[in-house]
């Protein structure tokens, strides 16, 4: 099997999900310059709600696609409600406060949401009801499953829909105008509070969809799943240039691929027995085709943050960002 192609496919799938989550970060940042650290928890709530609904409906033997769609249809309004509520009560009162205040508020909201989820769904890992029959296709020596294909297709559709909304509708134009100059947008008749609330709502809906996809992909969901996913999506948004919508899409996909390739090759590259001068020192371990691997693929999560650090050091405005310097 072709490891490279295989990891690119895995990375694309995961990266597309990161991109959808990163859009939520970047849209909110673009409009109120707030890093909504609670966004990852909204993804988690989306997965939990959908899993619960799917679990209830699973025994009836309805078509799996219908059951999953009903799960998503319940997760989206639930997440939007969370998004609106958080914006209204945790961020709006602090809109004129120094920048640190809403940031701390966001971290607080994240902790609250996580523990609310723990109270509702317990600490246990929920597993995805086995209703989707997994099929694997072989393409050029790499395996791709029907779930991966579905995730990729949904992500492309969601991103295309969002691009249409942001660049082709009245609300989207108002959102971009508000992001650039809220005061003048107000003078033109834009109710800024409504536009900001809509931004949170749209971000939360995307988070709900992403939550269901991640949960389906890994087959599990837990109340802590949002924090690491949220941080990675945040890293993706920064990589693309925070505040920049095409940037979030690009950053997410790139980050997913970097992570998958990293995970695929790190074991090989840090196998000390590969290197002759070390192999002779470690002859006991390396004899008869033995391995001495420093870092295995369980270090996968490190790559997102290495990328984040590299971007912050060498290109703080991100790949497509232009003018973060004056705002950060």
């Amino acid at each position, binding site marked *: 099997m072709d490891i490279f192609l295989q990891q690119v496919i895995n990375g694309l799938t995961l990266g597309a999900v990161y991109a959808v989550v990163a859009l939520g970060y970047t849209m909110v940042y673009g409009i109120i310059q707030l890093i909504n650290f609670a966004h990852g928890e909204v993804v988690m709530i989306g997965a939990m709600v959908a899993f619960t609904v799917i679990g209830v409906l699973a025994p009836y033997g309805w078509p799996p696609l219908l059951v999953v769609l009903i799960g998503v249809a319940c997760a989206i309004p639930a997440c939007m409600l969370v998004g609106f509520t958080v914006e209204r009560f945790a961020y709006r009162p602090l809109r004129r406060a120094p920048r640190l205040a809403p940031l701390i508020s966001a971290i607080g909201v994240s902790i609250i949401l996580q523990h609310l989820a723990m109270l509702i769904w317990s600490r246990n890992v929920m597993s995805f009801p086995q209703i989707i029959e997994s099929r694997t296709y072989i393409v050029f020596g790499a395996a791709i499953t029907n779930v991966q294909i579905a995730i990729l297709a949904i992500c492309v559709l969601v991103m295309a829909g969002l691009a249409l909304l942001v660049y082709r509708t*009245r609300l989207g*134009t*108002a959102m*971009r*105008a508000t992001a*650039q*100059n809220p*005061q*003048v*947008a*107000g*003078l*033109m*008749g*834009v*109710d*800024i509070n409504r536009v900001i609330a809509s931004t949170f709502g749209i971000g939360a809906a995307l988070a709900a969809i992403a939550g269901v996809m991640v949960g389906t992909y890994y087959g599990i969901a837990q109340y802590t799943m949002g924090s690491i996913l949220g941080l990675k999506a945040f890293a993706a948004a920064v990589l693309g240039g925070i505040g920049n919508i095409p940037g979030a899409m690009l950053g997410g996909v790139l980050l997913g691929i970097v992570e998958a390739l990293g995970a695929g090759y790190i074991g090989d590259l840090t196998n000390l027995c590969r290197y002759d001068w070390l192999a002779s020192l470690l002859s006991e371990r390396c004899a008869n085709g033995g391995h001495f691997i420093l870092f295995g693929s369980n270090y996968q999560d490190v790559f997102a943050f290495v990328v984040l650090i590299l971007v912050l050091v060498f290109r703080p405005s991100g790949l497509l960002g232009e003018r973060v310097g004056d705002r950060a």
Partner: protein
Amino acid sequence: MLLEVQGLEVHYGGIRAVKGIDLAVAEGELVCLIGANGAGKTSALKAICGLHARRGRVTYAGQALEGLPVFELPRRGLVMVPEGRGVFAQLTVAENLAMGAYARSDTEEIAGDLARQYASFPRLKERRHQTAGTLSGGEQQMLAIGRALMSRPKLLLLDEPSMGLAPLMVAKIFDIVREVAARGVTILLVEQNAKLALELAHRGYVMESGSITLADGAKELLANPKVREAYLGEDAG
């Protein structure tokens, strides 16, 4: 009176930037508010729109503006073109103009108004797919005025439309202001370029360090020795 301002005060921390001014604009009038840099003209204008916390009474079309959110103003025909033009730099020219009509829902008439803006500003039509940030200062000012007109204002507040523009462009912008006024739009014009503003206006107010020190017909102000000395750069003798 279309706009009536009584005892308007603006505070920044402990500083009184506007110290209780009165002014009024009747329907169909072009009134200018002139004064040096830092006299409080822009603060006064922003406070009228509610962009700054204010004290005093502002009445527009017979109704107090107290407690009215900013975004309601264009729905009532009150539109401000802010200092520095305030175009949305990353939106296209066409999108900027569309934002001007944001408060309206009469789609067909909006299309007609858009055609009218393009007819009076051919430059904007040529550049309608460009982002506004790529326009020159004068073109941005045209766009800002065109955008404001898209909302069909009754009262237009113009803040320093000549700021930072070359003399030829300033003359052009003032021609546009004259045309807009001739179409029956009431205008309150804030300007540092006192001569041009007074030549255009019916009446004028002179503002100095937060207070209105003179109020008179534009011709009378142009002839006033104090104004000539302080704002028109002429020696009193």
